[in-house]
């Protein structure tokens, strides 16, 4: 219990740090923020009024207190472009992204598991060598280029899949997001294989494996009943990393396939200099990553009491 409390304390500090970083992010805008908000042709009175209404005339620490207070009450800012709260925008754009993320995990995890097991069953064997080389090679493919080429081949040339949009019904979503999900999955599978394979091989050298072998267990039994269950925890711990990877990947893929999700929202906000949307999304992505890692840590502790948080 004490360990859990310590972990929660650590979480609070990281969340506070995230607040500071996202707060400073908007203050890194070159030039006078009030002028940026007002636009190029605003007169001095307007700029002064904006400075007052946004509290930009107050000292930095006071602005931060206001910002943190707003966050606590669930207000993460207002979009200049859409004239709507950022939370409302996120609520509108989040569904395609969530769908895509789930889709990618469904497409990427089964082959990654199978290949990692095939690879780790006989390290140094032919299958392992090939999977290793393909894994390293896969990381060198630019995901946006892969997306464009696949949309040209499967979408335009063969006409099997739509090349943009999100669709209306569940089946429509599956159809529209197949190519985006596949592009992301192809890029993610190598990362997964490498980590899983390393975890499996590390467990294969553990003392309890030697003990099982000394008791006369067969190699097949050792692999499936001793090594594999013990490799579950390191795999679970990967989840935070995977989410961080996925968020980065979906931003690019959503842009390529014009999926109306959070990634497209982020890119459009960046290009339109809608800074509070950028700030809000960065905050949300970071909190998501931290939250997933936290839950995974708690789960690990639940599954394996030895796990140190």
């Amino acid at each position: 219990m004490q360990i859990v409390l310590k972990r929660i304390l650590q979480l609070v500090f990281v969340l506070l740090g995230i607040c500071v970083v996202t707060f400073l992010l908007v203050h890194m805008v070159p030039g006078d923020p009030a002028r940026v908000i007002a636009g190029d042709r605003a007169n001095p009175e307007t700029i002064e009024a904006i400075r007052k209404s946004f509290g930009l005339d107050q000292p930095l620490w006071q602005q931060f207190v206001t910002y943190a207070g707003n966050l606590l009450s669930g207000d993460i800012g207002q979009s200049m472009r859409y004239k709507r709260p950022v939370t409302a925008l996120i609520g509108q754009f989040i569904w395609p992204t969530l769908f895509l993320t789930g889709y990618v995990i469904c497409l990427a995890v089964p082959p990654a598991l199978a290949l990692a097991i095939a690879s780790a069953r006989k390290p140094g064997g032919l299958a392992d060598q090939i999977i290793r080389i393909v894994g390293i090679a896969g990381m060198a493919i630019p995901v946006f280029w892969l997306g464009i080429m696949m949309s040209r081949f499967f979408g335009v040339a063969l006409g099997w899949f739509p090349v943009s949009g999100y669709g209306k019904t569940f089946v429509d979503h599956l159809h529209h997001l197949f190519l985006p999900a596949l592009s992301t999955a192809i890029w993610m599978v190598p990362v997964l294989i490498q980590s899983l394979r390393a975890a499996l091989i590390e467990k294969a050298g553990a003392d309890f494996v030697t003990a099982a072998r000394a008791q006369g267990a067969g190699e097949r039994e050792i692999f499936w009943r001793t090594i594999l269950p013990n490799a579950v925890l390191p795999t679970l711990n990967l989840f935070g990393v995977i989410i961080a990877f996925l968020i980065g990947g979906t931003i690019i893929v959503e842009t390529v396939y014009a999926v109306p999700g959070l990634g497209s929202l982020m890119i459009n906000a960046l290009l339109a200099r809608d800074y509070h949307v950028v700030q809000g999304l960065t905050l949300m992505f970071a909190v998501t990553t931290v939250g997933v890692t936290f839950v995974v840590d708690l789960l690990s502790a639940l599954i394996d009491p030895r796990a140190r948080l």
Partner: protein
Amino acid sequence: MSIVTQPQATEAPARGRLNWTILVAGVIVGGWIVLAVFAPWIAPYDPNAVDILHALAAPSADHWFGTDQVGRDVLSRVIHAARIDLVMCIAGVLPPLLIGTTVGLLSGYYGGVVDTLLMRLYDLTAAFPFFVLVLAIVGILGPGLLNFFIALALVGWVTYARLVRAEVMSIRDSEYIQAAQCLGYSDRVILTRHVMPNAFGPVLAYAVSDSVLVMLAGASFGFLGMGAQPPTAEWGVMISDGSAFIRQAWWICMFPGLATISLGLGLAFLGDGLGQLRRRQVSA
């Protein structure tokens, strides 16, 4: 059986094969460096010469890789773009490497407040998805390569610092360091002459692998309009330009993509080979 009896076999293929990997990867990377350095002499055309009459021409004897929407020669642009993309690898990796190594050395060797601060900072940086944080910083500072490098330096150094710190902590209490301390060498000499050379191997291997990620990130930023700005020839920018004409002219996108993959492969296998070489030396 083999899982336990020969764990080394997975990490260390036969010496001959490993040397081949490094050689082939080195030739690919070296080839791109030569192309980049001598680009004006090797490229058949001026990369920015517009020739509307021959716009969107398919690959032919005159234009091996075809021409783009305003008639620029794609081959010449791919060759010239290598300059930008290689510079991205170096300028994107070197500043974080230098800052991170310095901080990591001091933090690992002395410990204390600096060390605690570094680890908390690492926790914080790790909380942000790397790509998102770099993207947000570049977006706020304004699109362009310089801001891309600034963002990478701001975010990337922490990983290097943590890596060096771990190495230094494992070296710090070894006998040859104690010997150097007993002989009365100053901390500066011990750090630069004894700790640093022994801690740098893994960092170098990581840096080469990191350059693949940095190059891909740079190309992605070019594609998103956040990195190199048109009309500069850069692979990501070229792919972005060509994506609007993908139905009529696949070659505008295809060749810069293949160029990115080949350099990426070269760097990835070079990094992997160097890492294995080091592990072999450590175990030998």
